């Protein structure tokens, strides 16, 4: 065991970890002068001494006598930069430098660490900055005001004659200075003031700068600890086979050969899964391969993805729940001079996070301890309590860095599996899914089926729009309170709130849950579907009107200046309209989702074989106030690559009730040799911030489809791109 892990080995509390035992991101000066952060569980923590010396005015900030400012992170880091951007909000108002800040993951607490926009403790829906923008700055400002008051009292001066700077309070008139560390004990005894004013945006020193990511150093030297890396003392390693057909049961298993594998300790049988527990994952995998397993797959054993699509097609023949209704779309369609109809479909998609599903659990008679990376910590604690019959305060859950979330880590199925297995194991057990299990037992981006009807006026502009679609509502399962009268805010986002002015506008939704395949949130959630279908269909309208697709959109945006501005700038930066050789094309797309306006122009090349290469993407975003422009750029670049994978390759199919894809050979991910050049332009704005983690993904898919139309004249109404259909025939 390496030194890096010795601190992890310390016994941790049986109830909520006390501050002194919480997992901390340890910082230390690196050789190069940067920050080193590593996630550690520490038995004693100098930053949080016992007694009244620690100043902790709220759930997010703790300042101890040693001068460290410890920030508790209500959202978990999974690549989106939240462990840099959230500290920037606090540090700006608190007047500390990021180098003085240490981070820790929040413990499970559905109330204290609730996401203000979701009402539960969760990281998702691109809303961390949107939710934290005011409260986390307030947390910093309030703490700063208290530290100033404490200093003023000490000096017997007026607090307004003091100011805070770089973790100290100054009294310029007398040139006195006290550090926050020296003031922490006094500040802790002061009443918490209300309504402390926030800084004017023009006075920001940190917000708006490309501050370096706090999580980067540990991620380039192997010291960052993800859920899959925890090594509690005595841990065993397990891997599993779950029923290949969803809802199937374990019929029989012959484990003689598996138990004969060196290092295999035991085989655990569950109702619908088998796990092999061993001294290391190599032995567990070898043991798993040596099992002879028989499954009962009668339920859903014949299901195909075509069955799912057929059911959705039938569902959309009848009216759905009205999600949006402006004017009278039906009447306007009835008297239409020109009408355009289309059907669109999007497939099931897997998350395929680079860190395969995993969770480590130690179940004892009187307590349970869990280590994992999760986007929904309190849900994991709740499911553990339910499975073990233990009270919540006997379930300790340690959160860790996540090696890619994209919605997959909002689900507690991985923790549930680990706990079920750990209930049969003496001591802690780390359950790691093989990549094949990870892809074949994902919870998938839903399949959706859409019908459009529009009426065009004599100029070719839409006077009526009818959009009816059917598919799963993930929200109805995940956050039932948000599913009301057959609708939820996510499933329809990007469909009901277009920036285009269309006088008669109707959207209907039919919730149809597919049998035998679980669904879940997937990066860009509802818009991952809606933006593709809407922006492709708008492109179809422009083509039907024989108009340039950018000019056509601009003509519909008179009442949406921010949308108009991003589209106009994107077309300018992309060189829209300049001639391209044959079988090359540009496609534009526009969206307002997650509170951000974005336009993209994709440039593609379609080879004779039909293979599509995305060469260049120009993206303009107006996401309101920007906390860290480099993280905004990084998220857009990332979202675009994620969306290109979906557009070119992404498809999960079912045959005989089983997912047919299993690893990166059959579920392809975009590689560096296929990655386009992405150019990001950020519009300056002082509006409240919009979300950024998912926007790039939803928008690139129609931009690519529209570019392929420009290059080939083929309209793609079903994803992913099918090269055979784009093959050059002449």
């Amino acid at each position: 065991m390496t030194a890096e892990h010795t601190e992890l080995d310390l016994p941790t509390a049986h109830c909520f970890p006390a501050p002194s035992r919480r997992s901390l991101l340890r910082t230390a000066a690196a050789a190069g002068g940067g920050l080193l952060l590593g996630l550690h569980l520490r038995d004693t923590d100098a930053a949080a001494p016992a007694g009244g010396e620690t100043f902790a005015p709220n759930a997010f900030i703790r300042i101890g006598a040693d001068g460290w400012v410890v920030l508790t992170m209500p959202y978990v880091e999974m690549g989106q930069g939240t462990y840099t951007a959230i500290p920037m909000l606090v540090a700006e108002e608190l007047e500390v430098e990021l180098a003085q800040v240490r981070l820790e993951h929040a413990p499970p607490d559905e109330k204290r660490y609730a996401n203000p926009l979701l009402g539960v403790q969760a990281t998702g829906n691109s809303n961390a900055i949107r939710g934290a923008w005011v409260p986390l700055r307030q947390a910093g400002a309030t703490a700063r005001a208290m530290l100033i008051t404490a200093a003023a009292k000490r000096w017997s001066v007026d607090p307004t004659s003091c100011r805070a700077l770089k973790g100290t309070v100054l009294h310029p008139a007398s040139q006195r200075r006290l550090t926050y560390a020296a003031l922490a004990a006094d500040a802790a005894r002061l009443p918490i003031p209300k309504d402390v004013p926030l800084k004017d945006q023009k006075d920001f020193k940190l917000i708006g700068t490309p501050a370096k990511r706090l999580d980067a150093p540990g991620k380039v030297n192997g010291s960052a600890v993800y859920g899959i890396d925890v090594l509690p003392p005595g841990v065993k390693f397990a891997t599993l086979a779950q029923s290949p057909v969803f809802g199937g049961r374990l019929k029989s298993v012959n484990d003689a050969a598996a138990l004969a594998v060196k290092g295999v300790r035991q085989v655990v049988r569950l109702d619908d899964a088998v796990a092999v527990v061993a001294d290391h994952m190599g032995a567990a995998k070898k043991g798993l391969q040596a099992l002879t397993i028989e499954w009962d797959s009668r339920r859903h054993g014949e299901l195909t993805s075509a069955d799912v699509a057929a059911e959705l097609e039938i569902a959309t023949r009848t009216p759905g729940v009205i999600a949006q209704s402006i004017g009278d779309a039906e009447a306007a369609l009835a008297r239409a001079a020109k009408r355009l109809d289309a059907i669109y479909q999007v497939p099931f998609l897997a998350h395929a996070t680079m860190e395969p599903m995993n969770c480590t659990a130690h179940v004892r008679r009187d307590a349970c301890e869990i280590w994992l990376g999760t986007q929904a910590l309190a849900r994991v604690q709740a499911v553990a309590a339910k499975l073990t019959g233990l009270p919540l305060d006997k379930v300790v859950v340690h959160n860790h860095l996540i090696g890619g979330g994209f919605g997959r880590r909002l689900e507690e199925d991985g923790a549930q599996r680990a706990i079920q297995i750990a209930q049969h194991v003496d001591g802690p057990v780390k359950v790691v899914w093989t990549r094949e299990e990870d892809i074949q037992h994902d919870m998938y981006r839903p399949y959706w089926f859409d019908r459009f009807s529009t009426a065009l006026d004599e100029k070719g502009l839409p006077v009526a729009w009818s959009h009816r679609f059917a598919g799963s509502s993930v929200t109805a399962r995940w956050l039932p309170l948000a599913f009301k009268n057959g609708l939820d805010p996510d499933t329809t986002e990007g469909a009901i709130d277009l920036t285009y002015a269309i006088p008669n506008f109707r959207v209907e939704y039919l919730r149809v849950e597919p049998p035998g395949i679980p669904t879940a949130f997937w990066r860009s959630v509802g818009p991952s579907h809606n933006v593709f279908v809407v922006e492709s269909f708008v492109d179809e309208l422009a083509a039907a009107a024989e108009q340039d697709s950018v000019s056509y959109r601009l003509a519909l945006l008179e009442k949406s200046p921010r949308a108009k501005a991003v589209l106009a700038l994107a077309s300018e930066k992309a060189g829209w309209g300049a001639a391209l050789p044959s079988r090359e094309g540009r496609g534009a797309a526009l969206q307002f989702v997650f509170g951000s306006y974005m336009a993209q122009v994709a440039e593609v090349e379609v080879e004779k074989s039909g293979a599509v290469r995305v060469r260049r993407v120009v993206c303009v975003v107006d996401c309101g106030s920007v906390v860290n422009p480099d993280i905004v750029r990084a998220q857009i670049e990332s979202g675009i690559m994620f969306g290109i994978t979906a557009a070119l390759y992404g498809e999960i199919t079912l045959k005989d009730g089983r997912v047919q894809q299993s690893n990166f050979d059959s579920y392809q991910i975009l590689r560096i040799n296929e990655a386009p050049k992405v150019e990001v332009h950020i519009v300056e704005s002082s509006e409240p911030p919009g979300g950024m983690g998912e926007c790039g993904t939803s928008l690139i898919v129609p931009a690519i489809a529209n570019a392929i139309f420009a290059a080939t004249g083929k309209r793609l109404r079903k994803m992913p791109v099918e090269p055979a259909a784009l093959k050059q025939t002449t």
Partner: protein
Amino acid sequence: MDFTVNVNGMMHNVDVDGDTPLLWVLRDVLGLTGTKFGCGMALCGACTVHIDGVATRSCITSIDSLGGAKVTTIEAIGTTPAGARIQKAWLDREVVQCGYCQSGQIMSATALVAENSHPTDAAIDDAMSGNICRCGTYMRIREAIKQAAESNR
């Protein structure tokens, strides 16, 4: 069976089956968790280490194939000149996002710049297309490799 492996300059005795992939010896037996598991089939590159300086997928490298070869992992790559340049370039260019694949990316990139001081885009594609990044940090990886190569000229 007992095997002696040389990892980051330290000799370790491990008692595992000869066909055990090096990946699991590193992670689960020796506790060197910087090397990551991604696919188990050499399709994603997350598990890349250096064996006698050559970028190698540890998930399909059996422990009995090593002989006396020297294994270097992400935990020690910063002690090599090329590794240190790559790590610095990774930080300068803010390459990482979730970071899970980056150990493997850095090991592949280090092997490239250690032997090629002028990597072209094609050479970068060749060396790096076996490493998947689900966060899509490819543009920054390309820039960082060029920076690291230039910083040695």
